[in-house]
């Protein structure tokens, strides 16, 4: 129970500091909107092309946004060495990861839900017909991005060339999430939308594997 109560306290801290500084959300929303608009102007896709390529472009934009958003996740804890204070205070360091993971997932999901109307207008793809299913796919995809990204952010924060290291490690590792999320999204943007449980199951398995690895080895990632 201490794990979950510590996670809840830390999640509250993550949300409070972010909504007070608005550093991550503002930059990520602007960045992701810019990418989607640039893709739209560059390709000027027709409706059928949008349905074919749109989900891939959308998830690529999410992936770039995630690498931007996840970078400061642990770096911010280094400014005043607050990570040490957290490690001294929690019984289980996994609570630190869980809180950051939950916060990153919420921030990504918030960004995605904000982006969907812009995507729908720019690419002429209706999203309202399968909106709840789309949110489910985005949640599963965001969780996959966040689990891997949070772990790698902890690793890269202690390394030299950290700004380059995170995208270098993150982008190849997230290829399976990118493929599964794109396929699941594409199936929801066709005239007869259907939830692809096979891809959702794949995302769930990916999330469970990485979450278990984080639970087992997370403590070592936080060590100096």
């Amino acid at each position, binding site marked *: 129970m*201490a794990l979950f*109560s*510590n996670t809840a*306290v*830390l999640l509250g*801290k993550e949300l*409070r*500091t972010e909504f*007070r*500084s608005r550093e991550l959300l503002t930059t990520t929303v602007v960045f992701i909107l810019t990418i989607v608009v640039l893709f739209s102007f560059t390709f000027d896709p027709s409706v059928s092309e949008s349905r074919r390529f749109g989900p891939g472009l959308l998830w690529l934009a999410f992936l770039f946004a995630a690498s931007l958003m996840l970078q400061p996740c642990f770096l911010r804890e280094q*400014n*005043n*060495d*607050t990570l*040490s*204070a*957290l*490690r*001294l*205070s*929690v019984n289980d360091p996994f609570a630190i990861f869980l809180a950051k993971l939950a916060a990153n997932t919420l921030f990504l999901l918030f960004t995605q839900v904000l982006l969907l109307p812009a995507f729908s207008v720019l690419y002429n793809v209706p999203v309202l017909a399968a909106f709840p299913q789309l949110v489910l796919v985005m949640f599963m995809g965001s969780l996959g991005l966040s689990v891997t990204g949070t772990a790698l952010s902890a690793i890269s924060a202690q390394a030299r060339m950290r700004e380059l290291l995170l995208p270098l490690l993150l982008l190849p590792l997230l290829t399976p999430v990118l493929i599964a999320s794109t396929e699941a999204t594409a199936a929801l943007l066709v005239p007869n939308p259907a939830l692809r449980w096979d891809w959702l199951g794949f995302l769930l398995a990916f999330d469970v594997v990485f979450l278990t690895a984080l639970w087992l080895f997370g403590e070592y990632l936080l*060590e*100096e």
Partner: protein
Amino acid sequence: MTPTVFSPTGIRFENIDKRYGGLYALRRVSLEISAGECVVFAGRNGSGKTTLLRIAARLVRPSSGSVSFLNGGEKRGAMPPAGFVAHATMVYDELTAEENLLLFARLQGIAEPAARIEALLREVGLLERRGSLVRTFSRGMRQRVAIARALLNEPAVVLLDEPTTGLDPQGASWFAETLRHLRDSGRTILMSLHGESEVSTLATRAIQLDAGAVVADTRAGANFRSVLAFANA
């Protein structure tokens, strides 16, 4: 400081080595610190003071050797909660002084955190600024918040890594007074300092480190001042 209930605790370092790659930060350090001692680690930059304190706090794992905590001279398995103050403040700039303390109090499962926080903020002289963001504080005020955070759980062991860094003379005097209360309350205090100061005079034992090894270990009297002054050499 408020009278507190804690179990007097000593620390034993046994053959501690810490290597970063091929570089030794600590080399075969063995020390026994009795409960209630106020120990100052002196030494030049890079002599291993910070590493030793971070190992005592369990923030750094030694490459070999062990740290154990002693209760009544007996070894204890479980680590007692140690209060740790470093040069970095270890508090969040985007939270208020009160929010910072409440965050760490909740994480540590402190009963009745509001009353404890109010008492601590009063003791460190920040009760009137409790609702101000830490980023609006001066260096000295931030250090006071850091000290309040370290004392939240009424630790039996207090670890201070150059705690007077950035403090003006008035702040250093206030800190010395706070430290005197902590020492007189029976807490075990380990601190690293650069040279002699009002704070170092409170120490009951001085240990000199050089290149990661203990080169002198004196109690008050004898060579005590020369060890303290070592870092100024």
